[in-house]
């Protein structure tokens, strides 16, 4: 079951998945996903192995759904090369010819699209990603971030209505990352339909208005990121605490309503905090008052996997 928040504005449907599943043998990679990706920037968020790339490949026409349908403006995507007039694709895999220069690579994309002025289009696209300077160097001499940017330039060369990016910020340095984030945001504001996948929540927050969350092949959440973020912060936080006197500290913690469960283990105290701010201010005070030394305070469920699992459990309540 999917947890959905209503988008602030009415959107036109562009890429549409209806009850899409994909399995490899007995392994289900994507399970009964229905989603509509319209104008603006949408982030496809999920932990590694959640099925993001599989879903993106089905939207890009590089994977047939095992069940359900994937369409672009009502047209079937699979085995339909005409969709690429509207779609720009930035795959996660390297996917660049190292022996070509950046210029030759982007120009070849423009010529493959049959554009009337391929050289002008290539120059414009390279400018957009700030790669005009090193354009005459062979791609094999580029850093990973530079390769990523020429891939984006090649995907943008025909000014596509739909842009699909698979983990586009991987390998970029912070400055390049911010630049590409700005570019993606601007393109979204111009009315293009942009979907990018990421396993990093902060990347998605910065760029996307709309988030689709995928966990273990299931569509776990959909909607405005603030709403999803709020739900994420509603969940109890689990901590492991090691101290000079675990027993005394545990007794004091359980007496306070900020913790709903406290247990003593071989590795220290496991605490489930329901009031995060109160717990974090209480713990050092208690330690000081009880004269207990704190050796370790670490969250045990801060990884995205557990955040997403929480979303799944919330959505199925």
């Amino acid at each position: 079951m999917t947890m959905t928040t209503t988008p602030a504005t009415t959107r036109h449907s562009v890429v549409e998945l209806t009850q899409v599943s994909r399995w490899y043998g007995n392994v289900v990679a994507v399970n009964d996903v229905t989603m509509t990706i319209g104008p603006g920037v949408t982030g496809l968020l999920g932990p590694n192995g959640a099925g993001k790339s599989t879903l993106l490949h089905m939207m890009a026409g590089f994977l047939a759904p095992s069940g359900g349908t994937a369409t672009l403006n009502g047209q079937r995507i699979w085995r339909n090369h005409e969709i690429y007039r509207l779609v720009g694709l930035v795959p996660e895999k390297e996917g660049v010819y190292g022996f070509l220069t950046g210029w030759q690579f982007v120009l070849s994309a423009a010529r493959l699209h049959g554009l009337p002025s391929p050289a002008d289009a290539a120059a414009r696209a390279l400018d957009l990603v700030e790669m005009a300077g090193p354009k005459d160097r062979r791609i094999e001499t580029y850093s990973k971030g530079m390769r990523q940017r020429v891939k984006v330039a090649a995907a943008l060369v025909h000014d596509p209505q739909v842009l699909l990016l698979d983990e586009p910020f991987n390998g970029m340095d912070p400055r390049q990352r911010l630049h590409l984030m700005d570019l993606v945001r601007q393109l979204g504001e111009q009315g293009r339909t942009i979907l990018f996948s990421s396993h990093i929540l902060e990347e998605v927050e910065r760029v996307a208005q709309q988030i689709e969350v995928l966990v273990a092949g299931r569509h776990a959440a959909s909607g405005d990121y603030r709403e999803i973020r709020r739900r994420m912060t509603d969940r109890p936080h689990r901590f492991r605490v090691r101290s000079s006197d675990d027993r005394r500290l545990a007794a004091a913690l359980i007496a306070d309503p900020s913790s709903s469960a406290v247990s003593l283990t071989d590795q220290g105290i496991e605490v489930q905090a329901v009031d995060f701010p109160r717990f974090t201010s209480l713990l050092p005070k208690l330690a000081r008052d009880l004269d207990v030394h704190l050796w370790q305070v670490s969250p045990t469920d801060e990884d995205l996997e557990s955040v997403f699992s929480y979303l799944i459990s919330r959505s199925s309540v």
Partner: protein
Amino acid sequence: MNAVVADITYRAMLGRKRIWLLALLPAALIGMAALLRLIGGPDEHTAVILMEKFSIGTMLPLLGLIAGTGVIAPEIEDGTIIHLLAKPISRPVIALTKFVVAASLVAVFGALSTFIAAFLLIRDESGVAYGFALGALLGGVAYAAVFMLVGVITRHAVTVGVIYALVWEGLVGGYVPGARTFSIQQWATSIADRISSSPFLTSDVSLGFAVSAVVVVTVGSLVWAGQRLRSLSLTGDE
């Protein structure tokens, strides 16, 4: 045909170390012919054996394998093929273009070197040079198409190709008479046999069958490769 696809494919095939793979065997063939010529009057029998065993029997299938798989298999393996496929170009056109590049390379490195070597040895005696050049050309075209198809349908294209060339053509085709009918090597030899008047060259397959088989296998492989390319899937790392 798509000029951009052809341009990128030629650059990939000729601009790197692979050109040495393509040039090595033809250079060895011409070198051997030149050496035989230098050390004393090569006869027609020697020329026919060299052409049959080395040129058609060894060099041609290997060149077909290098060119046929080389035009597409590495791109599928490393994902660069997406640059070509994510464009509004029909996939069969991409397959046809890749095939034309492979076939042209086999023609230049295979058929032309065969002609030069045979001509070096015995000039135009009994039409041996012309016969083997044409046989190598048509056989090479069929090899290029078949191995390109293998490159599209399996990630183990080179292994499959080597097994085909060594086991089927080298062993079964060489010693089992019925299997020769279905051997590209035999079709190439039969074309050379029919064009040349050399008494040292014999073949089991008729010219009509050999030419028809080359056409059917080439066109069939191309159509199949085009269709497979339409359904090419990316599985991702997940």
